[in-house]
């Protein structure tokens, strides 16, 4: 690796370089750091998470907290408002905790991967009934598997109340017909999840599946639902299951009931197209917007050989020679920009509402992609004049201490602050100019 490659490894496998943190001066040091990161799971900043008391709500606890039946179908506007407020509070706890962990956790690559997977398997929090399920999604679905095996993650997501509700699979059931031949209300297959499973979660749009496969997958997953509104844990409801799927992806469907879906998920997790699609997205996240074909191939071979062992695939990508290619620049997403600004000055954040609001203005918050394909990863998704104006405004608000709960430290920020034009600027403005600079937008 070149020194550029090592610098990028440190910057991209984290939420930005921390001046008090490690320096990777040699390849051995880089490898050793990566290994320690790949084996650092879980939460190491528990005391900082105390304010987020709703972070670990189970679906049932969340629904009890909100009091679903009270506000849901009510004409009472106050009850409804109250319900939305509480759902919003849960979501704020989750995103606030994410911000705190991104800034302060030593398990940087782990937190990066939590962000990657929660975006790959995107659910939109502010949707009715989804917000309160996101705590379970973050803590019990994404985090336990973020550096584990892809198959475990895929299966856990498929059974998660958040995904079942978000992509409507919870209401997908065998169509029933009345005497007059009309399909009864609220019966019938819903293809939403099955389609996104193939297109966005596993094979990719060019992964070689057909409309027929989407229809078959939708039947296979019919009956994968939640127990009830007040107790929204996964349940397979046999009488809702449409057994009509006979073939999918060129193979006969052998199993029956719940096992049909389990078989399909296991097949998809080991599919060549899945290996390539996930490797492509990881290479795009860590190396280049338009990742080199060789790297994607190499990573997908590792994916297949290790049955989707995520750390093995990451090792292949992060230590690749392409990381050292000077042309392989990455434009920071708004979230990475904001977090890296705080980290670059050895600053601190409590992830409170004001911080959330400021980061929300920049865009790209976790659980806030309105579409199931998640937030974009590339320069084309984020680089715009309005976006740059917002980043500059953020930099000065941050540096002036206007963002309650978030402060910057006093560390000197790289080369920009030392350019001749910056001479005479006061300390906080030097930091703001550095964070606003074109150079700081890349990593």
């Amino acid at each position, binding site marked *: 690796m070149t020194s550029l490659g090592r610098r990028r490894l440190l910057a991209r496998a984290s939420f930005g370089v921390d001046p008090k943190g490690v320096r990777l001066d040699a390849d051995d040091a880089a490898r050793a750091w990566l290994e320690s990161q790949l084996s650092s799971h879980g939460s190491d900043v528990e005391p900082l998470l105390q304010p987020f008391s709703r972070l670990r709500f189970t679906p049932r606890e969340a629904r009890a907290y909100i009091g679903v039946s009270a506000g849901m179908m009510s004409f009472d506007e106050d009850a409804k408002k109250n319900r939305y407020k509480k759902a919003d509070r849960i979501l704020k706890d989750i995103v606030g905790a994410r911000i705190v962990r991104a800034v302060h956790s030593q398990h940087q690559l782990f937190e990066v991967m939590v962000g990657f997977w929660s975006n790959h398997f995107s659910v939109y929090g502010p949707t009715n009934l989804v917000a309160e399920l996101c705590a379970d999604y973050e803590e019990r679905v994404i985090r336990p598997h973020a550096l584990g095996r892809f198959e475990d993650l895929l299966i856990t997501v498929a059974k998660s109340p958040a995904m079942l509700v978000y992509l409507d699979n919870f209401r997908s059931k065998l169509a029933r017909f009345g005497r007059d031949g009309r399909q009864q209300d609220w019966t019938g297959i819903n293809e939403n999840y099955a389609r996104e499973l193939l297109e966005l979660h596993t094979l990719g749009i060019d992964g070689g599946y057909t409309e027929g496969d989407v229809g078959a997958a939708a039947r296979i997953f019919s009956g994968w639902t939640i127990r009830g509104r007040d107790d929204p844990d996964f349940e397979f409801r046999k009488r809702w299951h449409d057994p009509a799927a006979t073939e999918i992806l060129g193979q006969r469907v052998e199993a029956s009931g719940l096992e049909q879906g389990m078989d399909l998920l296991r097949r998809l997790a080991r599919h060549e197209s899945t290996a390539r699609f996930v490797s492509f997205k990881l290479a795009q996240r860590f190396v280049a917007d338009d990742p080199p074909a060789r790297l994607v191939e190499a990573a997908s071979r590792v994916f297949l050989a290790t049955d989707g062992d995520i750390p093995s695939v990451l090792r292949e990508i992060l230590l690749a020679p392409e990381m050292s290619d000077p042309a392989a620049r990455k434009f920071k997403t708004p979230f990475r920009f904001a977090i890296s600004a705080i980290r670059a000055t050895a600053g601190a954040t409590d992830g409170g509402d004001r911080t959330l609001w400021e980061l929300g203005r920049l865009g790209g918050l976790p659980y806030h992609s309105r579409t199931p394909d998640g937030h974009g990863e590339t320069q084309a998704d984020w*680089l715009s004049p*309005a976006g*740059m104006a917002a980043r500059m405004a953020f930099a000065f608000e941050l540096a002036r201490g206007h963002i309650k709960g978030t402060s910057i430290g006093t560390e000197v920020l790289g080369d920009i602050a030392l350019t001749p034009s910056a001479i005479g*600027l006061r300390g906080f403005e030097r930091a703001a100019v550095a964070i*606003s600079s074109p150079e700081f937008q890349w990593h």
Partner: protein
Amino acid sequence: MALTRRDFLIGGSAGLLATSCTPVWIDSQLESRERRYGSPLLVVIFLRGGADGLHLVAPLRDPHYSALRGTLALPEILSFTDGFGFHPAFQPLLPSLNEGRVAVVHAAGSPHATRSHFLAQDHMDLGGLDLSHDRKGWLTRLLESADSDAYFTRLSLSHHPPLAYRGSPAFSIDNVARFGRLAASKHAQQVLRTIYGFTDDDPARVAGEIALNASREFKIKKAMLGDSLETPKGLRPRSIRGRVDSLIKLERAGIALRAVFLDVAGWDTHVGQGGIDGRMARSIGDLAEGMQALSDAFRERRELVTVVMTEFGRTVHVNGSGGTDHGHGSVMMVMGNAVRGGVYGAWNGLESDALYQRRDLPVLTDFRSVLSEVARAHLGQPPPVDLFPSFTPQSLGLLG
């Protein structure tokens, strides 16, 4: 991303901009540039959540109307034509209605069968295409041929730019009073201008330079207006009327605008939709006030074409909660000087067999046909053929 270097204002010299007084030539350039934007201003108002078209514009003479709509049936309406009437909450729009400046296309919408808000909205924003990373929004395609060397030609008055602008450097401003505000000293701003004035092709630098210049233009214009961009008391900033107020002020300030997108939530009326009064009536009142304010403000100033759209309509039947559920066809409205008032598009009545899946208003006029006429009004000529790929618009004759 094809960001070209804008030489406007900066004149190649970063130092010039650091001076506090504005040279006269800047204003003269602004003037000449505005003259080039003489084409009608396009305003897109998107009602998020799926607005109930039958509540906006009611087919009062349909024999099934009262029975199907139950508590939602309107006992009185603002008179209109062809057996249709506007919800009484449209009262503020009456001047424009009477002048025949508002066209209604009933049973309009997207042929996409989805009842998912997001899928349906994305599909419309992308002009009838499904979401994938290389798709451009319909406004991007519409304005592609247009001059694009001014900063706010493509504007959205919202937090996030809509997918309709996907693939173009559109500005989105969620708070007009706050935009361009930079809590930086003069010296720090000068340093920023210096580092953003270097000539290299770093796209972040180019975008940042545009941002700084745009903010500056914005501030100059704002200063000429006086500091009155705050939403006046009595108007909610997030309402349609509140954002129309911002839009009017931006235009008065001389900001060169070509297309403005504004969207407003609150049309997803599953519960307690209300009749003459109530929840949806309040939303309609806001829409009507916003539309009339636009009409009044631009009457003498500039041609204007406004389109009101929503992702889908709602069930024809009232549901068990005094509301309506996600449906299919709805209403689109087009307002402008060149518009001929009236009700357009096919209409098959509310008989059960005429409904989509026997429950929803069908889509008898594709939203792209309506937008094609809107595009023609905006461009003053037929829109590019690839505005809506693999779609042949039907001629509706909304324009005089």
